[in-house]
């Protein structure tokens, strides 16, 4: 019985070892959003084209995508073709948040590359971004028909991400609503 206490160190070590081993395979690259299943925050920002004020009520009927982009953002260019395809085929409305950008640079970017967005609003100082828990462009949110945030995707939304993540998610939303 006395001898058992000498086995305590190896026992503790084994537990630690298992924890460390599991820890190796954890994905720590993304910060999970805490706004999932919460309603979109209120806002009032200008449209990038005509400076008209846009508020939460002016957003499309869901489900729709809310994409955080900037003219300075290279990965945004990488996901741009996917958005163009979605917009051309009218798969799902996409609203852009022009995040911490200059209006003329943003307009230039849209003209040069094409505008997949139903419209873009300008978040110059990043306030809306903060309210959404954004920590860098690009990020894309999936909003349902009740204006509730259902999913956040960090970094490039390429065709693979669209097929593997968004399509099933949207299907689930639609079956929910029926």
């Amino acid at each position, binding site marked *: 019985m006395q001898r058992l206490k000498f086995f305590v160190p190896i026992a503790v070590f084994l537990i630690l070892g298992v924890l460390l081993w599991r820890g190796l395979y954890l994905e720590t690259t993304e*910060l*999970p959003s*805490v*706004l999932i299943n919460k309603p979109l925050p209120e806002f009032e920002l200008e449209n990038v084209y005509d400076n008209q004020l846009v508020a939460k009520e002016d957003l499309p009927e869901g489900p729709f995508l809310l994409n955080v982009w900037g003219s300075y953002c290279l990965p945004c260019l990488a996901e741009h073709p996917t958005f163009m395809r979605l917009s051309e085929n009218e798969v799902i409305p996409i609203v852009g948040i022009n995040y*911490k950008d200059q209006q003329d640079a943003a307009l230039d970017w849209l003209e040069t590359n094409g505008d997949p967005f139903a419209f873009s609003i300008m978040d110059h*100082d990043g*306030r809306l971004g*903060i309210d959404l*828990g954004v*920590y860098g462009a690009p990020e894309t949110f999936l909003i349902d028909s009740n204006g509730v945030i259902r999913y956040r995707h960090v970094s490039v939304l390429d065709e693979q991400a669209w097929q593997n993540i968004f399509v099933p998610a949207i299907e689930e939303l639609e079956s929910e609503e029926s």
Partner: protein
Amino acid sequence: MLRLALILVIGLSALNTAGSAFAQVDTFEFETEEQQQRFRRLSNELRCPMCQNTNLSGSTGGVAEDLRREIHRMIMSGMSDQEIEQFMFERYGDFIFYRPRLRAETVLLWFGPLIFLLVGGLVVFSIVKKARTSSAGTLSEEEQQQLKELLQEQSADNQ
């Protein structure tokens, strides 16, 4: 020895005329010293959401800069520290706090060291008790008797 220490510390100081820095510089205005302190504490204790492992005050640009600006705005608008922290929590979750909040899941974290200390105390107690009652290094009554007999035998043999 003391001389060596002094030479070393002065020598190291001489080397130390320049160093890189990765801190940013904000120039926010505050009305009172207390507000300045609160700002410093909050930007030190909140984590930058996009950096590897730095606080808001140690990060350049990006979200960190925006968040510091927000903290300044919130302090000036009269929000309490708790309200500011709640604001951050609602948007970025637990990740943003370098001081983990005490909840059911973090009880083990906060009380762990106390538990370790208690276990340690018990270990000391049991070792001291054992050392006290042990006769290591000394002979028992019976053994002393045996030793006496052996020695008497020895001296009898030698005569």
